[in-house]
């Protein structure tokens, strides 16, 4: 059980990265971005493209760091993929969502459009890479370390936790200490007053998409390192992402962090009783329970 909880924290930290971005976007633009799961997928595959394509072509060595399953190529690919997916998210906003916003289309139209965008991203991945599962390092043995309480954990997983922690702290500092970060919180709080205060809200929206997309990409890559890559991986994260976001109160990024960890742990622990394929259903049931008991989430005011 302790082991499942630890795995749950690993999974949950990945969900958190996605949920934080989803919550940020929801807080500022007030619509459910159904393409967010596919940002995770896009991030994983862009990193794959870098690791197995570009970086091997320009001759970055392929050896791994100690007992980790990756090396310099991934270290370079990781931030590049975050930037690329951040740009993809911004581009979608410029091409699709902004047009709808300007026409005064409702939140549902925007959500619908994001669903379309989700499939567009996924179909492009399917066209390029096909429907099979892929690995960053196929055929690599990935031994687990034995830590106290009889928990087996792979070095990769420990690193995943540190990477997530690092990104969350970075985001926290950005939002609390920088002018742009504060303006972003202000816009989420009260868009009209932000405009009145002279904040360029269109620029804030761009930053929001960029950060949301980049964090999702990070989550996708980490999942790819931990498990595998699959064109539907992000779609399967979508329900857990929404469950985490709603649990942690929509628009609250710290809530999204806690929500993500909770959902991740619940999903992993459930595998002690249920088939692992039901993980998604577990997230769904938790979400329905939240909606029944406390629809505004743990930090919401009734």
């Amino acid at each position, binding site marked *: 059980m302790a082991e499942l909880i630890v795995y749950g924290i690993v999974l949950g930290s990945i969900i958190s990265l996605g949920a934080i971005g989803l919550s940020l976007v929801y807080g500022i633009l007030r619509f459910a971005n159904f393409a967010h799961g596919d940002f995770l997928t896009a991030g994983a595959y862009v990193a794959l493209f870098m690791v197995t394509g570009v970086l091997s072509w320009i001759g970055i060595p392929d050896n791994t760091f100690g007992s980790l399953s990756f090396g310099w190529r991934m270290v370079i690919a990781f931030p590049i993929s975050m930037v690329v997916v951040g740009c993809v998210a911004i581009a979608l906003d410029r091409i699709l969502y902004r047009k709808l916003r300007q026409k005064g289309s409702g939140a549902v139209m925007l959500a619908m459009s994001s669903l379309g965008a989700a499939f567009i991203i996924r179909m492009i991945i399917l066209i390029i890479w096909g429907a099979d599962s892929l690995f960053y390092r196929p055929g690599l043995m990935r031994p687990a370390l034995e830590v106290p309480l009889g928990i087996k954990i792979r070095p990769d997983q420990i690193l995943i936790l540190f990477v997530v922690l690092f990104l969350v702290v970075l985001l926290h500092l950005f939002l609390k200490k920088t*002018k742009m970060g*504060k303006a972003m*919180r*202000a816009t*989420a709080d009260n868009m009209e*007053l932000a*405009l*009145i205060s*002279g*904040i360029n809200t269109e620029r804030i929206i761009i930053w929001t998409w960029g950060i949301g997309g980049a964090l999702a990409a990070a989550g996708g890559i980490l999942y790819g390192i931990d498990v595998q890559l699959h064109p539907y991986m992000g779609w399967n994260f979508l329900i857990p992402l929404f469950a985490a976001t709603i649990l942690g109160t929509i628009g609250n990024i710290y809530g999204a962090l806690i929500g993500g960890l909770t959902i991740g742990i619940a999903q992993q622990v459930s595998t002690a009783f249920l088939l692992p394929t039901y993980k998604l259903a577990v997230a769904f049931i938790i979400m329905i329970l939240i909606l029944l008991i406390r629809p505004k989430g743990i930090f919401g005011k009734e």
Partner: protein
Amino acid sequence: MIILKAEDITVGYTEVDILHDVGIRVKSGEIVSIIGPNGAGKSTLLKTIFGILKPRNGSVTLKDEDITGLNPDKIARKGISYVPQVENVFPSMTIQENLEMGAFIRDDDYSQRIDEVYDLFTVLRERKKQKVGHLSGGQRQMVAMGRALMLDPQVLLLDEPSAGLAPVLVSDIFEKIMEINATGVAMIIVEQNAREALKMAHHGYVLAMGRNVLDDKGEALLANEEVGRLYLGG
């Protein structure tokens, strides 16, 4: 000298015009009060001056510069600040952060200005790390005004600053308004508390059904029998 002037303003939210040829003038250092029944278009006039609504006809002039139709951030840079009637703070941010947002477009060091605002609203200084959402209505109104003052405006637009406040607090707020005015800031104040608003005002305007009805010196309007009967509640 006339610092702010709106002339022949015609504007609406949809195709329907809400204001018809409305005009208003503010001399430098003056308090101008706008009174009138609910739905008269008072808030709409302030939003138009501040560039949130774009007028279909008419002009807004600040000193000698035509600022009609500029976006709010441009108008803020030119020296006008605006406190909306509702939702005029960032509730999940601290008092200090609310003031910083008021100075968003300033690139210089504004720490001295923050001090001045805290000197004006001393209760806020003690709680600068508190979230504004947790404050009382009166304190929130102070945060809202403080935010607007951060740009050191020449003209301050206040939309119903006393709305929803307990009577004791109302006089507090009006006192603060007088203090701000004493530093040389011209103001347009929209008020439901019409009598109080006219007492403070150098000049007053009565608006009804989206049109100018009357304008005169503050005390003259107070003395006007018809205004008393129709707008001051007898």
